[in-house]
């Protein structure tokens, strides 16, 4: 390693570096100068420092070097950079949501851990080497466990963190075991090298075992059935901004990472080995997510089941990524993240104004805060896939790619038809949410809700992006 290589590595890792530096800076400031100040001020300081670090990281990622860095450990291709910027945008909106949600007890630590999670997620987007993949995934996951259980005094929050941690720990073990098998089979850790080794022969039993292990971890990370069990409890128990980050940025980075593993590492030659399994997971997620969501009365659990259903649809994008590129999947995952980060942002604000658990807690939101009600309508309708919002075009591009894989009678085609049929089911539970927010009157004694400036900015920002990417989908679809 010569100095120029280190310089190149530093430039390539500038986004991660600025996130980590921001996190350390705000911890240091909070510990030294602002230690005895009131929590609101400490929160504001932490959020602004964090926001600046995130924006700096996004600029660095956008303007930074492209191509392979440090051997083949990182690959900063279009997908990686788009994912990094996407993850950072979602993190920024989640930071905005923190301002409106109930103030965490140690605001600086909370924001710092969010930044560490973002660091891991940004690294995940570009990682091309199995050890780095695992490290970045663990950095992100461990940080997310912490912020899921940050309200340690609330049993639900602790329960959420514990469940998330136990499931996550087991899936990490599976993943590591799978990686070691892959290393054993191919003798290399870099994805391109693995692909080159695997391209020759067919699927050997050890490799199939490794693939199964990776798919288990993938299912957990993306909350796909039957590995979804943690999701409803975590979404329900975690503080709203934590749930926002877990459901949006973490999902985007996870989908991109596993799409890379399945297509770049395993290669197209191995696709027949995992296609049926992923198709089955997709079908199970679509059915379970959409049907179980119908029965929910708790808003956060409803969003969790809807997330499971959306994972099922995104898996179709993973299957289509080999032939039609990652653009449909990225578009779907990112715009889904925008909608869900916004929805949890709204939940956080309503939570602070007197609790937001059941769907009925949204009653009369249009009177209490027209801003929140209007933004929530955009987010929920985008989740439902109503044009001209971005959610519709995500579904459209993923389904049309999946239908072209093997025609309507192929597994992906049949799943697309199933997903389209279930979107009519999904509209019912989304309209139930909007009925409370826009149609029902407020309960007696409900007061108007004041939305802090930063949160309003984040909500309007994500709503505007959803509308913009919906009106002109080419802005995102065209970058690949």
């Amino acid at each position, binding site marked *: 390693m010569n100095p120029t290589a280190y310089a190149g590595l530093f430039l390539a890792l500038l986004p991660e570096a600025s996130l980590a530096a921001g996190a350390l800076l705000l911890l240091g400031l909070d510990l030294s100068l602002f230690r005895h100040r009131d929590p609101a001020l400490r929160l504001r300081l932490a959020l602004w420092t964090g926001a600046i670090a995130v924006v700096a990281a996004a600029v660095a990622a956008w303007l930074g070097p492209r191509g392979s860095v440090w051997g083949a450990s990182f690959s900063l291709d279009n997908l990686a950079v788009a994912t990094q910027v996407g993850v950072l945008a979602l993190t920024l909106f989640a930071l905005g949501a923190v301002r409106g949600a109930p103030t965490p007890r140690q605001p600086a630590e909370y924001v710092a851990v969010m930044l560490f999670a973002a660091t891991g997620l940004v690294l995940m987007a570009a990682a091309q080497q199995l050890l780095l993949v695992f490290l970045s995934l663990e950095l992100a996951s461990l940080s997310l466990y912490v912020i899921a259980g940050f309200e340690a005094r609330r049993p639900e929050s602790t329960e959420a963190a514990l469940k998330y941690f136990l499931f996550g720990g087991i899936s990490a073990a599976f993943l590591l075991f799978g990686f070691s098998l892959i290393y054993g089979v191919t003798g290399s850790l870099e994805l391109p090298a693995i692909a080159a080794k695997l391209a020759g022969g067919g699927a050997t039993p050890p490799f199939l075992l490794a693939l199964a292990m990776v798919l288990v971890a993938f299912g957990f990370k993306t909350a796909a059935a039957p590995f979804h069990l943690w999701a409803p409890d975590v979404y329900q128990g975690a503080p709203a901004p934590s749930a926002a980050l877990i459901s949006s940025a973490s999902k985007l980075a996870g989908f991109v990472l596993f799409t890379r593993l399945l297509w770049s590492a395993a290669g197209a030659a191995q696709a027949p080995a995992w296609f049926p399994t992923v198709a089955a997971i997709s079908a199970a997620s679509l059915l379970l997510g959409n049907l179980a969501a119908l029965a929910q009365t708790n808003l956060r659990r409803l969003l969790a089941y809807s997330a499971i259903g959306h994972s099922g649809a995104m898996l179709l994008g993973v299957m289509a990524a080999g032939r039609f590129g990652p653009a449909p999947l990225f578009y779907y995952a990112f715009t889904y993240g925008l909608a869900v980060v916004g929805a949890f942002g709204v939940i956080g604000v309503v939570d602070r104004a007197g609790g937001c658990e059941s769907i009925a807690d949204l009653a009369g939101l249009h009177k209490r805060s027209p801003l929140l009600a209007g933004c929530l309508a955009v987010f929920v309708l985008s989740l439902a896939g109503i044009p001209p919002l971005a959610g519709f075009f995500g579904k*459209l591009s993923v389904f049309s790619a999946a*239908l*072209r894989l093997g*025609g309507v009678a192929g597994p992906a085609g049949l799943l697309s038809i199933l997903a389209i049929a279930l979107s009519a089911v999904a509209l019912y539970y989304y309209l139930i949410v909007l009925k409370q927010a826009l149609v029902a009157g407020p309960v007696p004694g409900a007061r108007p809700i004041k939305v802090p400036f930063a949160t309003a900015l984040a909500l309007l920002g994500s709503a505007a992006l959803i509308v913009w990417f919906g009106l002109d989908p080419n802005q995102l679809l*065209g970058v690949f």
Partner: protein
Amino acid sequence: MNLLPWCIYLSLAGALLSLAAGRRSPAAARWVALLTAAAAWAVTLLAAVQFVPGSSLQTLVDLAWIPMLGARYHLAVDGISMTLLVLTGLAATAGVLFSWNIATRTGEFFAFYLALIAGVYGVFLSADALLFFVFYEIAIVPKYFLIAIWGSTNREYGAMKLALYSFAGSAIVLAGLLWVYAAGGGQSFAFGELTRAAATLPPHSQIAVFGLVFFGFATLAGIFPLHTWAPTGHVAAPTGASMLLAGVVMKLGAYGCLRVALPLSPLGFAFWQAPIAWLAVIGIVYAGLVALRQEDLKFVIGYSSVSHMGFVLLGIAAANAGAVSGAVLQMFSHGVIAGLLFAVVGRMLYDRTHTRRLSELRTMPIYRLLPFAAAVFVIAAVASMGLPGFSGFPAELTILIGAWNAAHAWAAVAALGIFIAAAFTLRAVQLGFFGGAREPEAEAPPRGQAGTPHYGPISLPEKTGAVLLVAATVLVGVRPDLLLDWINPALQSPLFQAVLKGGAP
């Protein structure tokens, strides 16, 4: 002509403006809505004056939109869409006039209302199947809120049922369209390209695709047995929204059947033609018979809408130039007449008497208490029965002749529907407006009011709206050639000629 897309943009801008204006005062929102609706209508009328009928879609805008999917922002117009655009402008303007009394959340009402209108204009202007579908879905969500927030009888049920039926229908359409699109290699959503792509599918797939797309759209057109959302939705909706629902939104479904589904696959159509025609005929008779037994006056009109839309579907299914042009004429005619009927019952009558039950109305001499309402209702009823001089007559007559040319039995049973329509309409007129005749003076005033019941006079917006709609039905009744001269050349396009056969235009 090139201004025509502005009817979409004006309506969208009006939606945002009335939302903002509604935060100041309800009156401001009303005026913004009226001005934008009228301006959009003026745009369509201006284009109609300059319109030169031709056999092809005349492109207004054609831009690359989503290159990756081959979707284009392609707006174009022909005689069929021109007819329906003018209808939309008329129905929207009249609907605003009849919504003048909306007092709660006025700005939001007109925002949803104009967003719905923008979607409707967009559908009628789209020449790209994906764009068509996007506008089609834009029109769904506002309907839910218009009914759920400002509606009456059983509104949340009616709103949800209507939204789910519409959305399920459109999901079926999307599945069918994507199937064809993928079969064509995912290159283009242009109507002609989709037809070419469908032709490459094996026959049973063509039949399946045609069935998906046609019945998906036909759900919104109220085809039997998928019509049940229509009466409950129309009854639950506030007056302006029921005018739009029956007047133009059901036409979206019929227009989709005609523009997208019909040319998609001649082979698929050949398979489905008879089932569709019979379902349409059953719808005409069945909905008519149900209307005959209704107790709520608004339900009578709701079911009559289903019955009259059956004629549109029958005309499309008969698939000869005469029947199809009659179907388009019937879309216009029913749009105007249904709007008028809902306006009288929902706004003029119900907002004053607070009842729509025939058993209560028959005890009141409405013809003396609200003479204007009674007169307008009689005119609308006469037009609805299809008497000469009103738009329903040329429309239903051309459909029946066309259907007779296709299959005698369809026309014979459908003609029975005309008698049933006369029966339920006359019953509604008799019981609803000319009741209390036997003992007019001795009748106790309703709702315990002292003395003779006195209702507020019919307001100026109501009168204006009614006059506009009556004028339209009379004008088209006397001069149907005004619209037929637009419609018939459009049916000469190659896409339509591939499925249409026989019958002089």
